[in-house]
């Protein structure tokens, strides 16, 4: 099975809704609308030739400069039978970061989604127990969002530029 075949199958099913196709370092990547993520995962899982039935990784990225789609949730799926990987992303605005939860499909998504909620504040709809996992419960902010100074803002000798930002 090749990346072209996966792309062809997905475009047949979802048409123009899937965008941002690219292949960096041989890994097929695309973006899907946030409300479609469960359908895409279910299709990749159920299809007899695609068989992406292993959730390798689930995490978030914050792009403060992309207005209206600041938070990105990244899924890495793996077809263990044909040994091929795939990455897909959904973008949501940081004011309303609602994404459907995968925890019904993959038990392993439970903690990965809790971690993503903990650090990026993504609201996973349908998650059985969406609470903080690594940080303390009293925390009232999402630390991995790029909203904070890299260094103590009162210091004059170090600014973000020094850290390559």
């Amino acid at each position, binding site marked *: 099975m090749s990346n072209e075949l996966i792309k062809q199958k997905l475009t047949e099913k979802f048409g123009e809704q899937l965008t941002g196709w690219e292949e960096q370092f041989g890994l097929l990547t695309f973006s899907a609308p946030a409300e479609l993520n469960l359908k895409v995962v279910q299709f990749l899982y159920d299809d007899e030739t695609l068989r992406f*039935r292993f959730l390798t990784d689930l995490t978030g990225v914050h792009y403060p400069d992309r207005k209206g789609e600041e938070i990105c949730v990244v899924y*890495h799926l793996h077809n263990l039978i044909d*040994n091929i990987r795939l990455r897909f992303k959904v973008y949501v605005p940081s004011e309303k970061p609602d994404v459907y939860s995968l925890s019904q499909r*993959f038990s392993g998504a439970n*903690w990965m989604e809790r971690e993503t909620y903990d650090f990026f504040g993504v609201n996973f709809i349908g998650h059985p127990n969406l609470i903080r996992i690594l940080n303390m419960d009293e925390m009232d902010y999402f630390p991995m969002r790029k909203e904070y100074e890299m260094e103590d803002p009162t210091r004059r000798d170090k600014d973000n530029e020094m850290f390559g930002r």
Partner: protein
Amino acid sequence: MELQQQQQQHIKLSEESLQKQTTTLNLGPTHPATHGVFQNIMEIDGERVLETVPTIGYIHRAFEKIAERRPFYQITTLTDRLNYCSSPINNMGWHMTVEKLLKINIPKRIQYLRVIIMELARIADHLVCNSVIGVDTGALTPFTYVFQSREHIYEIFEEICGSRLTTNIGRVGGFERNFSEASFTKLNKFLTDFPKTMTEFENLLNRNKIFVDRCVGAGPISAERALNYGITGPNLRAAGVDYDVRVAQPYSSYEEFDFKIPVGTTGDVYDRFMVRNGEIWESLSIIRQALEKIQKIEKEFPEQKNIYYAQEADHFHLPPKEDVYTKMEALIYHFKIIMGEIDAPKGEIYHAVEGGNGELGFYLISDGGRSPYRLHFRRPCFIYYQAYPEMVEGGLLSDAVVTLSSLNVIAGELDA
């Protein structure tokens, strides 16, 4: 009391329950039999575990956030502290991720040296896990035997990089210095001595009736559930799935080596123990093959002997100190690397290695700056530890303790 009863309403006691009420047991955070700092709040009926709720995050150190302001070569020390029982694998995984981003080709000899380091680390990791299963079942002696061998592995690491546990071994492009003669002598001594210790260890436990009775059937998981949970590594193989990143997506020339993937059937404590034992033997054979390959290269191309990093990685590999003081170019590179003036290319990359506990993935997004835009570690422990409640619920409390040690949950990797 009333509140407690309300909270426990979802728990249905069986007919045989003698006490007719459950007890809340707080296992951890610093219980001597939990390896690292994590807590389990258990509901037990007599000795039977009805429900367990793990709490994690006690040693969370925000590595992913710290990595966003560090240059690439300084992130190696963060990876040390993920699975600190086999930090060389984490270090190498990180170097290979960066090398893939920079499109650097590594000379074969360095790749084989890396394989040796990684397999030694895997042996050390599995030895800790398996001997500690023995300790938790009441057999302290095997533990003291194999820790001697673990010590020998750490001496080899010490000879190569100067440190033992958090090794910071290797650099982007190769190693920080060449392997000394003494390191090969120590390695050869280890290869002759260790099989005896390992055989003794296996004789003590593998068919020991008390040990087998204690482990068989404890904390099982089916292959289907294990895959659904995203379990990888020896714990997945114990359930009967032969997925190994070294074979599925070979890195560092693993495709040239001849080795087997041990698998189990039921995914219980005993299978996990046996799979790890099998992997130790396979790792030993891989090290021997790698040594042979290195000797062959050194015989054919004697000049290769002095090369310990890829020349094309010049911009990212700190030059040797004596060159910095005597050569202009080396001084410039040293200055640029230390001052963080060297930018990495843009790119998005996922690279995985077979860590001691399973697929250790690095998801790296570079925006063309000196440090990653985002770096995410796919930590196998974090993902498979969530299956723990399902494995122990319905079993005995003592089984829960052995299951925990057989999963080899390392707090550093769990909490990042």
